[in-house]
Each structure stands twice: as C-alpha cells, then as structure tokens.
C-alpha cells in the first residue's frame, strides 16, 4: 500500500467528513437551541438533491440547481417548522421522534409521487469534472476537492456566524438559557424558524452537492441521517465544534476502515475470507467508534456535562 494511496484515502475520508458536517451542523444546531430531535433532516437532504436535479435538468445550469436546492430545502424547512415542528419544542423526545418519523414517510412517498420511482440525473458541471494532479503525483477528482473546500468554507462561515454576529449571540444565548433570550427581547419563534431554515438549507446543499456524484433517489436521506446522528452524538449534541470533529472522525473511520481492515485481516486469514470479514467489521466500524466514545464520555466529546 503506497503512500499516495493512503493520502488519497485520507482525502476521501475528509471529503466524506465535511459533507457529513453539513448535515450534522444543522441537526446539532436544532438540537442545541430548540432541544429537538429531527429525524426528518434526511428528507431535507433529499429535497435539496431533487430540487437541484430538477432545476439543473431544466436549465442546464448546476449553479442554478444549487440555488434551487438551498431555496427548496429552506422553504420546506420553514414550512414544516411552522406547521409541525414548533408544536414539538416542549414535547417529550418520544413525540419528536414519532412526529419526525412520520414526516419522513410523507416526504419520501410524496417525492415519489411527484418525481416517480426512478432515480433522477444530476451531473457534475463540466468546469469541475475530471481529475487534477496534486503535488506528489496524486490524481484526485477536482469536484471532490471542491467539496472539501466548500465544506471547510461553510464550517468557517458557521463559526463566524455564531461567534461574530448578533444572531450568533442569540443562538448561543438560546443554547444556554431559553428564558434569557426572551428576556432580551428577541422574537424567539422567529429565531427558531430561522435556525431551522438554516439547518434545512445546509442539508439541502449537502444533498445537491453529493447528488452530483451519487444517485438522486427516494430514501437517499436516511443512511446519511443515521450517520449524521452518529456524528453529533460523538461530537456532543449541540456543539458545532463537536459536529465538525465528529464528522471528520466518522468520515475517516468509515473510509480508512473499509480500505485497511481487510488488509489487516489478510495478515492472518486467507484473502477471500479476510476481505469478507474485514468488510463486515468495517461496516460496523463507526458504530463501534460511537459506542466507545459514549462509554468513555457519555455526553460525547464536546457535549455539556450534566
């Protein structure tokens, strides 16, 4: 296994991680500020991908597709926040789980109703397609590099938003003490809608970006949703920094585990069996990682201690 391959795999893990971060950031904000578990976050990811595919297909412009993804996901987010979610803030976790589970059903089958049962087409824009050669002779797809860049930029942007702006102050206040922001004269219900829409837009953006290199289909949100939950639980629910670290950890564990575990198993097993058992253990890898983190720190790496 050459150094080039290892670097390439690390890049892959990084790219996977930053995309997970886009999903996880919204989830963790929504949980941190409003105390809401949103299982339907994956549906917003799907909405973003479908909107991008539909608009990019109609106009031929990937960029317009991205704009559409952001708009559609934010709109869908606002809509469900106003109609359903805001009634759930005070409700027990159990009700939140059930209601947002119900939203998944509505979104998934509703999308199938509108777009049909076959996957949609969404293509990498020409300007970003194909590989580039990195220093050291590594050939790496330009689009994936762009994804890493966008993900990191958004991470920085979110950090600035939260640390440096008025809204950020309100968000941080909301995480610490909900009554206090009311006392500060902030319109809470508007703030909540705003945060929810922001989280939704991030998910939609992730869906559209990833949709270009994956399959845009009904149900695409659920596997990512579960991974995003793993991420925020590892990072500590409510912590953006935790979500970032958690996302990178999960991305790297999943990618590198899948590549290297079978190799490790080959040291003491015959290749075919090693390949199979290595793959099996690797598919459980991130859950094992999460279990270990929670045993060590029951509220995640950066979670508030009870």
């Amino acid at each position, binding site marked *: 296994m050459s150094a080039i391959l290892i670097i390439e795999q690390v890049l892959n893990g990084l790219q996977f991680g930053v995309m997970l971060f886009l999903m996880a950031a919204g989830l963790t904000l929504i949980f941190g500020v409003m105390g809401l578990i949103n299982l339907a976050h994956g549906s917003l990811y799907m909405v973003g991908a479908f909107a991008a595919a539909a608009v990019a297909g109609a106009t031929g412009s990937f960029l317009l597709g991205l704009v559409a993804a952001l708009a559609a996901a934010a709109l869908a987010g606002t809509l469900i926040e106003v109609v359903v979610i805001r009634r759930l803030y005070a409700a027990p*976790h159990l009700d939140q789980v059930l209601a947002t589970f119900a939203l998944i*059903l509505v979104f998934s*089958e509703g999308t199938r109703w509108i777009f049909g049962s076959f996957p949609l087409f969404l293509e990498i824009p020409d300007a970003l397609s194909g590989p580039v050669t990195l220093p050291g002779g590594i050939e790496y797809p330009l689009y994936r590099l762009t994804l890493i860049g966008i993900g990191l930029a958004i991470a920085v942007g979110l950090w600035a938003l939260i640390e440096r702006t008025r809204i950020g102050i309100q968000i941080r206040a909301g995480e610490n003490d909900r009554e206090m922001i009311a006392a500060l004269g902030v319109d809470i219900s508007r703030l909540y809608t705003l945060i929810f829409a922001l989280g939704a837009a991030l998910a939609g953006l992730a869906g559209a970006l990833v949709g270009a290199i994956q399959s845009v289909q009904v149900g695409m949100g659920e596997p990512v949703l579960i991974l995003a939950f*793993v991420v925020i*639980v590892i990072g500590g*629910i409510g912590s953006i920094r935790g979500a970032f670290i958690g996302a990178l950890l999960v991305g790297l564990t999943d990618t590198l585990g899948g590549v290297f575990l079978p190799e490790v198993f080959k040291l003491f097993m015959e290749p075919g069996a090693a390949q*199979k058992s290595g793959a099996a253990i690797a*598919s459980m890898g991130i859950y094992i990682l999460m279990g270990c983190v*929670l045993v060590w720190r029951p509220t995640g790496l950066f979670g508030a201690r*009870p």
Partner: protein
Amino acid sequence: MRIAEHWINGAVLIGIAALPLWALFIDEPFTITLVTRAVILALAAVGLNIVLGFGGLVSFGHAVFFGLGGYAMGILAYHAQTYTVLDLGFFTTEGTKSMPIIWLVAMGISAIAAFFIGLLCLRTSGVYFIMITLAFGQMFYYFAISWAQYGGEDGLSIYVRNGFPGLNTLVPIQFFGICFALLCLVLILKARLQRAPFGLALNALRQSEARVATMGLNPMRIKLLAFVLSGAITGLAGALFADLNRFVSPAMFSWQFSGELIVLIIIGGVGRLMGPVIGACVFVALEHFLGGLTDFWHVYLGLILLGIVLFGRGGLLGLLTGKEGAHV
C-alpha cells in the same frame, strides 16, 4: 367519551380472540394470519413498553432483540431441517424444531444481549440513549447482512413451521392460539409487575432518578433488569414472528423496525398495559387497508401519525379514557 380502561382492555382482548374464530367460521384463513401478526407485533411492543413506557427509556434499538429472537429460531430450525450440527465451539447441538425450546433460547439470548447492551447504554440518558441504542441496532443489522453462513441479506427460509407438542402449528388458528396465549401470559405478568415493588421503583425512576437513589435503591440495577426483561419479551416475539413467516432476515434488525415498534406504542398509548396491543391492531389494519387503497399509502400513514402526536396525546387509549398517558 370516557370509558374505564379495564373495560376497553377486556373488550380488545375478546375482540382479538373472536375475530380469528369468526374468520375460521367463514373460512378466511388469511384474516387469522393477519390477527396473528398483530398479536406478535403487540408482544414485541409490550416488551419495549416496559422500558419505554414505564422506565421512560426511549430505546431506538429494540429491533436487536426482535432480530436475535428471530435468528435464534432460524438458526436452530435451519440446523434441524438440514440435519447439520450447530457448532458453538464449546458446545454442539443438532438444532431443534420444538417451539418451547426455541422460545427459551430466543429469550435467553435476547436477555444476555440486553444485559451487555444495557450495561453500556444505560450509562447515558436522553437523546444519547436513543442514539446509542440505534447504533447497536445498526451494528447487528450490518453483521447479519454479512453473515453468509446464515443467508446474509437473503435470510433463512424455514420450510415447515416449528412444532408445539400436541398441536398442529401449520393450521393458522392453532398457531394463533399459541401466540395469543403467550401474549395474555405476558400481559398478566406485566400487570402484576407494574403494581409490584419493582414496578413501583421503575415507575418512580422515570419521574425522578435522584428520588429513587435517595430511597436507597440502585437506579442502574433497576433499569438494567427492566431492559433485560424487555429484551427477552421482544426476543420471544421475534421467534414467533419468524415462525409466522417461516423466514428470518436482517430486516428484523433494521432501524425502521425499531421505529415501527415505537409507533405502535404511541398509537395505542404510552405506558399503558394494553397500549401496544391496541396500537399493533390499528397499525396492522392500517397497513392492510390503506395499502390496498393506494401505492402511496405511506403518505397517509405519516399524516395519521402526525395527527396522533399533535392532537392525540395519550394515544387511542388516552382518547377513549380521557386520561393522558405517562410522560416520557
């Protein structure tokens, strides 16, 4: 409309018993199968309700025990039907087609798994608990998919339903009888448990863990035992479900199934003895009738669930008795 809960409970049980007899009379065996399915799902949800309704622990990974029960049945019956030896390293056996033995194994394995999973998961609480149980579910799911020896994703088919001494389990009404009797038995046990000192402590634990510890009771042990009991019952249901379908597959471990179990409980009413039973009946009926109406029945199911959460606190039982259920 306010009706005493025990009247509703009685009526539901009588209804569940009567429907298959009626179906037998008019020769509609599929109705019996459908009711049997509801009864088994109810049993699984009754198990989950011990931790979820009474202990306030939202386990999003109970499919683990359902699947383990199913695979206990599948593996034992597979070795029996292929006349191969099941080698556990320290112990070999030839498998079995006898339901009572399968049940014991299913419950035993589920209980052991629940013990170890509980030991880890119960250190956390709230959302962390929800998520770590979910993670365990996923671990088992992926393991089952890649476990080629027992069919992997294809699952295992058992060609003939397992036997129960003195009965012909292939006759739908007789198999229904077995499942219904087990459900009643578990309900009786649960009703007693609920009022016994252990139930009192578990119930208190949901409301205030500090209070329970201050009374000299060990919260962790109480939760752990509840989790183990709960897992064992859901495991039993898994074994029965596998026998109903004569088939097991990793789908039994899926997180969607864990979600469905929670849905059943909430439809019926959280923390109520018969909540899961009513929920299971309604769910199976919805699935059957809505599924027949339109391909997109999930949309309607979703809307109905939303309605229940937003407007029907306490589930159907809450609606009928005019009382909210337990707060979780």
